[in-house]
């Protein structure tokens, strides 16, 4: 397996920086990932009875996913897409209606959650309110009936790693949100889990703290190298922390790939619209020209050449959809592109967002740095020129415009 080699390499390269920071007292951070292993979901399906008890709904539909050792994979999707159910099946709190889950090479179908050797950080942190911070963190070790010295030593190591050792005699309600978050993480990491599961762990924090904890969490995960599955509905969070993003919708796995991959090459209008903003213009596929595609936009009397249309194949004459980001359009008063009229201009400080009505579509366009770029007013006639390198061709399935 070449992949494991690369992961191992990543681990060794990531540890020196960590050990240098916490050298001496703490020992090797590699210990924390000693039990870490990959996770494999094979044809996982989960069916729930409806609340009325009359029928059944499919919460997760035939999902396959392979998480490598040491990787952080994010399950991203709108609420009700099945991401939390998937996570809970890995944790063992839900049992799949069909399919298999492997942690390492072990099929965990018959392993209850408390025997899976995994850890979870909960949305509400779920700290034990009647226990001190020390007891909270040591809990997993004490359930394992480890010798007292080992419990104390390992707990101490994690408390120092998380920088919460000074609070060990406090109760959870005496800590701030960020500190509670660290305790929750410490409690999860201390058992040296095979997999670390995160169930929207940052959604209870305010925006500024959320960003800070997000970065902290990412750097920690990279230093420790524990396999992680992270559930969130916040696409910015997913982009920021993931090795790989898995997008789910209505129980289906829609697309999976690196953050760059997902943003730059969405394979469906849903993904394009869910990750960032996107414009969609309906077109007719004319023909292929090497890697490029040539399309015709009805109503506009031009053939467009799209150099990097993406991977989807179309028949000649088929309907398709041009997808491009608001920042991939340049506006000018005269010149190239689709002619149209500004119907809305919203000032955000770092950019201005325009809505331009062309003959065939309503485009959202972002112009950066409004202090030095040209400004337009509502009612102005403009031309919207696409950056053709950034346009993708997607199946035309009428995306929902909000």
């Amino acid at each position, binding site marked *: 397996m070449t992949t494991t080699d690369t992961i191992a390499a990543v681990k060794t390269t990531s540890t020196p920086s960590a050990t240098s920071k916490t050298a001496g007292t703490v020992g090797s951070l590699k210990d924390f990932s000693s039990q870490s292993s990959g996770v494999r979901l094979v044809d996982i399906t989960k069916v729930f009875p409806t609340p009325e008890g009359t029928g059944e709904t499919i919460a997760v539909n035939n999902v396959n996913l392979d998480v490598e050792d040491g990787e952080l994979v994010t399950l991203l999707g709108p609420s009700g897409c099945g991401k939390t159910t998937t996570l809970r099946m890995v944790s063992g709190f839900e*049992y799949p209606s069909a399919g298999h889950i492997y942690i390492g090479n072990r099929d965990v179908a018959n392993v209850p959650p*408390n025997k899976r050797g995994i850890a979870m950080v909960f949305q509400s942190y779920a700290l034990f309110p009647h226990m001190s911070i020390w007891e909270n963190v040591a809990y997993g070790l004490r359930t394992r009936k480890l010798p007292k010295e080992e419990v104390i030593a390992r707990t101490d190591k994690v408390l120092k790693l998380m920088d919460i050792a000074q609070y060990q005699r406090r109760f959870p309600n005496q800590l701030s949100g960020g500190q509670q978050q660290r305790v929750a993480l410490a409690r999860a990491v201390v058992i040296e889990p095979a997999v670390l599961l995160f169930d929207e762990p940052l959604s209870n924090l305010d925006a500024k703290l959320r960003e800070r904890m997000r970065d902290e969490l990412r750097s920690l995960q990279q230093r420790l190298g524990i396999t992680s599955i992270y559930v969130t509905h916040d696409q910015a969070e997913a982009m920021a922390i993931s090795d790989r993003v898995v997008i789910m919708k209505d129980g289906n796995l829609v697309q999976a790939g690196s953050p760059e991959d997902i943003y730059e090459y969405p394979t469906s209008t849903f993904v394009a619209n869910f990750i960032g903003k996107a414009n969609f213009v309906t077109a007719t596929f004319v023909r292929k020209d090497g890697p490029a595609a040539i399309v015709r936009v009805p109503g506009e009397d031009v053939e467009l050449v799209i150099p990097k249309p993406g991977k989807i194949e179309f028949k000649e004459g088929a309907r398709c959809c041009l997808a491009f980001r608001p920042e991939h359009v340049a506006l000018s008063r005269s010149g190239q592109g689709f002619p149209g009229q500004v119907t809305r201009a919203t000032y955000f400080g770092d950019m201005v967002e325009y809505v331009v009505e062309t003959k065939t579509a309503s485009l959202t366009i972002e112009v950066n740095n409004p202090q030095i770029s040209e400004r337009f007013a509502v009612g102005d006639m403009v031309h919207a020129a696409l950056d053709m390198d950034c346009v993708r061709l997607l199946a*035309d399935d009428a995306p929902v415009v909000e």
Partner: protein
Amino acid sequence: MSSVAVSALEPGIAPDRSPGKKVSSKTGMKSLNRLVRQPILLITVLSVFVLLFIFVVLPMFNVIKIAFSDENGFTWDYLIKGLSKPVYQRTFLRSIILGVIVAFTSTAVGYLFAFATTRTEMKGKKFFNIMATLPIISPPFVVSLSIIFLFGRQGLITRGLLGIKDANVYGLPGLVVVQTMSFFPVAYMTLRGILMSLDDSVEDAAFSMGASRGRIFRTVTLPLTMPGIISALLLVFIQSMEDFSNPAVIGGGFSTLSVDAYRIINGMNDMNMGCMLAIMLLAPTVCAYLLQKYWMRKKSFVTVSGKPTQARRKLHEKHIVYPLFAGCCFFTGVIILLYGTVLMGAFVQTWGVNYVLTLKHFSYVLTLGAGVIKNSVILAAVAAPIGGFLGMVIAYLTVRQRFPGRRLMEIASMLMFAIPGIVSCIGYVATFNTKPLLLTGTAVILVATFTFRNIPVAIESGTSTLLQIDTSIDEAATISGAGTWYSFRTITLPMLRNAFLSGLTYSFVRAMTAVSAVILLISPHWNLATTKVFALFEASQFSDAAAYVVIMIVIILAAMGIINLLVNLLLKPRAKAPSAEAVEAALQAQGSSK
């Protein structure tokens, strides 16, 4: 790099939403399998079911069986008798009439206190709160006793002040007063909860739109508290119907079902008719209980919106507060008078004749009655922790675990709440006087009756606490490696501390004060203080009864203090962490072992 296998997913093609034919929510891990995998859980669930069957379901079944059978087997005779004989008809009707009257009077008094203590800026709200909850923990007979002291033949007021020679306090009016003073706290507690959860901003909104205070009360407050009022009415109705001690000693010629059922079994030895009367008593109380459950489920339209962001100015207009204050003072005064009278009655030579202070009643009680008081305390002290613990276990099982028959367990464990004491008493007599369940005359039957009659309250408080605790806390324990028992012991039970405490206290108090539930179960060897007091009533030894009651009050208050102390001592969370030296030593030990 990407090793993700995207299944069933060609872009733009709607994925197949129907999984393979065999897959359904039933496949995979079933709850039963899950139970089998956890032997401790399985054993616990099974034992709870067995206990509930033996001590709750079986006695009730036997009551019904006996009521519908004679030597020749099944018969409608007793039902026909019960419904057609004027004497039974009258008893049934009287019980209902009494229940309805007391329900309304108690709810009215309870509403007065609840409204005054939650909705106004009145002085002494805390004091009124204490006074209005006090009767709940008091032994039975207190109110009856002081009513007799005050208004009886030798009554301080009737004879002493008004000079009436043969005042008759026995009968419906006396009963209404006694039961109202005994049961209005039930209504008060229910209504207080509802009124406190009512967001006062709705009243402020009505006020800002120009409504008068009276109009607001009529159009906003009263309708919003209606579920609470109905619930209080039903709860008091149940209490009044099942009340045994007050009608038994102060009812006089006014017979009620619970007393008649007892007299028929105890005096006439007619078990079948007694069971039929028990069923005639059971039917309305169970109906009222179910109705109450139904109403409280609908209480969700009460505007609960968490904590108010700022303290609002409550009702302070003099013309509103003063009459409410006067009302509270009046009833508080009555309570103080009632308890004071009993206290005094325990210390005087002969009530109505000779008011010289004496300790002779106490010495009488302590020489002749030390045994029964000891019995009461021991049995209550044994039953209370069992009931408290069992209550927590059942609450945990029904709220947090999934297993077949969970709803059944919930219903069976709460059933006893709706069953009048005398009915369960008859059921126990019928069930436990033959082998293999021969328990009559033992302490076990008394402990069992205390335990199972009092768990509903422990379960209720445990359940409501558990429902407020996020499930993820349990899951966090599980994922950390804790098994069911370890997680229950280290996480659930400590967090249920307050619920456990209130369950424990309630169980103890109820066990100390039970009359009707044990009246047929006591034996010469295991006699109890309450039944002894009842016997003293029958013999008109009121001052001796008063001494008993005073001692019981002292014991109950002391026990509450001790329970509180114990639970705090044993279960209070302490912020624990090893000392710096311990950490150092552990690190060294670890370092050397590696």
